[in-house]
């Protein structure tokens, strides 16, 4: 009978699970019964992780633009299915470049990038079937009405009963009253909501939101946050980029900080907080922020904040 695999090697195998899976299987063949059954359970769980897999896998991603700086210098991160992942970074950190590569608009220079199990470089058409992009600037057609925008998306995604799907989404995003107006007349928050609604058509499993609240007023921001939280409830994987720390804190299950072309921190909010010096207890008078004041004065939840809904009674 051969000896057990040393403990250290087992640990390595687990960390780099999928790549070492076959090696694990071959080791399994020559093990004693106890260890074999333990390892078998591990292999089974890895199998499950592989078939469900991460929704987004980015490894050693590099990109530089012509004559310009090296924007991405080896980016690594995974996004679990059904989670909200925030890519945090200052302007010019390369967040948009990452999103553009993930959504097949830009080719990576090096590294592997898969979305929903498909490689962005070799299977871009399959990636496009699985994703939806909501870019930095609301990608809506201003001359069409809100409903026409949704129907156009439904036709392009070959969704049956486009009109019905459009009406459902209009209701879900509180745009029914504005459905027949041209988008040019919409407020910023309404545009963003329409933008996100357009991204949901065809139920793509992965959605990219590139700075979804940049340029929005506080109420519109809260509206968008509500939409994003709802997406995750419906099982959609969301990758969002933001430069607002509170936005990442509000929405994301995991947060990665992109700085100078690399991910310098990646974890849950609690994990990231541990990177800081230990907590000190101080007594500070809690002053309302200007945002609190603004929202209290204007009428908080943002429901009646749009140009179109203004003046509608609260007892609706």
């Amino acid at each position: 009978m051969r000896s057990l695999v040393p403990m250290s090697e087992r640990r390595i195998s687990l960390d780099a699970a999928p790549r070492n899976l076959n090696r694990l299987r071959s080791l399994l063949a020559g093990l004693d019964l106890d260890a074999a059954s333990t390892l078998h359970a591990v292999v089974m769980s890895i199998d499950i992780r592989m078939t469900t897999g991460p929704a987004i896998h980015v490894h050693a991603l590099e990109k530089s633009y012509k004559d310009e700086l090296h924007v991405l210098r080896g980016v690594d991160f995974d996004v679990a299915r059904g989670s909200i992942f925030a890519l945090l970074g200052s302007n010019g950190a390369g967040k948009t470049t990452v999103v553009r590569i993930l959504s097949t608009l830009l080719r990576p220079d090096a590294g592997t990038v898969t979305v929903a199990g498909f490689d962005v470089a070799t299977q871009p058409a399959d990636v496009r079937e699985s994703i939806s992009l909501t870019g930095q600037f609301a990608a809506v057609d201003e001359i069409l009405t809100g409903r026409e925008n949704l129907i156009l998306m439904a036709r392009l995604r070959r969704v049956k009963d486009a009109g019905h799907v459009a009406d459902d989404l209009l209701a879900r995003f509180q745009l029914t009253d504005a459905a027949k107006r041209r988008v040019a007349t919409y407020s910023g928050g309404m545009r963003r909501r329409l933008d996100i609604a357009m991204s949901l058509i065809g139920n793509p499993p992965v959605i990219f939101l590139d700075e979804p609240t940049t340029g929005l007023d506080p109420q519109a921001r809260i509206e968008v946050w509500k939409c994003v939280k709802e997406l995750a409830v419906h099982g959609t994987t969301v990758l969002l980029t933001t430069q607002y720390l509170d936005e990442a804190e509000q929405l994301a299950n995991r947060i990665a900080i992109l700085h100078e072309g690399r991910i310098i921190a990646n974890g849950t909010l609690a994990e990231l907080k541990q990177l800081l010096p230990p907590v000190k207890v101080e007594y500070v008078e809690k002053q309302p922020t200007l945002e609190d004041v603004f929202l209290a004065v204007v009428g908080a939840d943002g429901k009646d904040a749009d140009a179109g809904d203004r003046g509608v009674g609260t007892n609706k």
Partner: protein
Amino acid sequence: MTTRFFGDTAALTGRSLRHVTRSPDTIITVTIMPIALMLLFVYVFGGAISSGSDQYVNFLLPGILLITIASSISYTAFRLFTDMQSGIFERFQSMPIARSSVLWAHVLTSLVASLISVVVVVLVALLMGFRSGAGVLAWLAVAGILILFTVALTWLAVIAGLSAKTVDGASAFSYPLIFLPFISSAFVLTATMPGPVRAFAENQPVTSIVNTIRDLYTQQPVSTDIWIALAWCLGILIVAYAFAMATYHRKIA
């Protein structure tokens, strides 16, 4: 994939046609200059021009139609440029659609918008006394040449729309095209021009196209001009299409 191409092109063409029908002012802006030129030349300068035909408007119309098309396609470049500026272009590119259908939708819309403008200008010409006894076949031939000319110029507009940096740049490319008919047989017979100008006028595409259209609806036998006209149109079409597609693939790579 081909069924996808046709479905996507139809959906996207429907979208950009709405842009045309919802801003009818573009049709007015496109047609107002050719109509003004037609009025000016027929009622002001026309008396001084010997065109060899009794109705100067009959002589003038083909050139006016080409000017109409040239100014109409500058809106194609404008619409494409606006799409690229707004996020909607990237949204389309990230969707599972036939990628070239985004361009074809603009090309078909351009064709429809140009033909609407051409019809408006022809109606005005009829009011001004334009008459033709040409048969259906001759008119079909005229329509075919105008369509070919429009599609060829539209692909030029696609290049401009894709590569422009500003809105003005996107539409400015059409100015030379609008003025090309002035140095051709469109307004006066080329025989009246001094040597070098005449050489240019007789060997640029507009003259052969104008002469062919004029021969067709005045029921003259069509000269070899028709082959030169077709060669020019097809040549411009092929070259412009190739450049437009290359530019497009560079943009979306």
